[in-house]
């Protein structure tokens, strides 16, 4: 009994150590606040690019009569909700002093994106998909968001 229990305890300790290794490696490294913020900004920008892209694709597919209206509306509504969450999550983060300027730029860009996706949704509600200017704007916005995200990825 005694020896068996000791074995069990030893095995558990080894497993715990194995599991704790990678975890410790992640938490021990003390990330400076700026790098932390850069990481969140990159995530927010690329997520927003994804939402804008998704809404644009839905609208464009509907414009080419390949998507029925409720489906397009569901997609664009989901993109709008997710875009709002992305903006909110980043704006709630505390900005490190050395990133104040960038933060303003990023949040502005995200706000533009949220407005654009909302615009796309109101088009979907009205059923007016044929707006090449909006689609164009969304495409450029998505690539700009991706480009900005790339800037913070290296940091």
């Amino acid at each position, binding site marked *: 009994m005694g020896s068996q229990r000791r074995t069990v305890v030893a095995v558990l300790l080894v*497993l715990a150590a*194995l*599991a704790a290794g*990678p*975890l410790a490696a*992640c938490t021990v490294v003390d990330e400076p606040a700026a790098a932390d913020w850069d990481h969140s900004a990159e*995530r927010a920008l*690329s*997520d927003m*690019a*994804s939402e804008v*892209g*998704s809404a644009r*694709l*839905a609208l464009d*597919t509907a414009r080419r*009569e*390949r*998507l*029925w*209206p*409720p*489906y397009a*509306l*569901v*997609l664009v509504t*989901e993109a709008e909700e*997710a875009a709002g969450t992305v903006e909110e999550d980043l704006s709630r983060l505390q900005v490190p002093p050395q990133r104040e300027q960038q933060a303003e730029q990023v949040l502005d860009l995200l706000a533009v994106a949220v407005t654009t996706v909302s615009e796309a949704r109101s088009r979907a509600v009205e059923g007016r998909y044929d707006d090449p200017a909006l689609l164009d704007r969304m495409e450029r916005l*998505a690539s700009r968001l*991706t480009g900005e995200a790339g800037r913070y*990825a290296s940091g």
Partner: protein
Amino acid sequence: MKRYFAVLLGVLTAIGGFVDIGDLVTNAQVGARFGWSLVWIVVLGVVGICVFAEMSGRIAAVSHRATFDLVRERLGPRMGLLNLVGSMLVTLLTFIAEIGGVALALQLVSSVHHVLLVPFVAVAVWIVLWRAKFSSIENVLGLLGLTLIGFAVALWQLGPDWSEMVATLSPAEKPAGESWATYAFFGVALFGAAMTPYEVFFFSSGGVEERWTSKDIGVMRANVFIGFPLGGVLSVAIAGCAAVVFLPQGIVVESLGQVGLPVAVALGKIGLAVVVLGFFAATFGAACETGLSVGYSLAQYVGFQWGKFVRPTEAAGFHVVLLVVTVLAAGVLLTGVDPIMVTEVSVVFSAIALPLTYFPILVVANDPDYLGEHSNGWFANALGIFYLVVITVVSLAAIPLMVVTSMGQG
């Protein structure tokens, strides 16, 4: 002639029934983020589910014992109970995800919010579980699920550069923006989605429901070895469509609507309608399968009468369990939790729970007391042992990866 028809029907329903909400969502997510570089995991998972489904089907045919009978007989009441609790939680989670998936599929047609649809879906599922014949559930929903072939057609229409696709099949083609940890995490999720434990609970209990005997082993093998891999092809097609349409644009898949979008792009409204019907059939079928599986596992552990091969009054306890889990699942979904998130969690927890299910099956599949001349040959054992190692590694790696990548977001 009748026999050929039975084989054909079995294979077709196996294909149509293979994909569920976990496969739909995970494959599309992986395709959108990792392109073709994780397809090898689907192949690994499909071969694995074939190996163990064949074993459990053989045990069910020869000895009339389903999976949880074996778990209790081989692991004893204590380990068996831990196993039961773990497996039932995972299956319940999958059940919740499937019901949510049905509601999401209906939302795409009606644009009524999915939470409002949940009560109707739950009632429909329960009525089917209570009244419908086992074979009609399997055949009707399985055949309707075949409409997911739309994804394969869409992929062909989208016309990716096939030679380039072949070149990006290797893990080394992981997109540079993704870390190896997220790659591994999605690998685990994809493996969990392909090998979901409920599939063997359902498959083996279904064998007992349909009163298989050792004469049916051939038909069962045809279902498994033809149907499951072709079902796996559908999984790969879903990932492929996402890889072609979403990956270049950096779009991440977060909803069931996005999963079907590439089909709309490629085939238009009719193709999309066919595939959305497939969403409905696949998730509704899987909701029935997972709901039944929860009842099967509890009844097989405790020993009371289960199954749809007897009248509901004769298996009253079993039907009470089905009612309770359906109400529970509807309750969880009515809190407004995102079914896609439940799906993501369920496939990871499936991966964690894999050894609980597959180890006892491998042991009993070798036992001449149960199987007589039909016990495992060396090839099944070699594959079984290989997968036991893979499953154990996947199961141990799942939680650390989940923490490190914060559910694949990092």
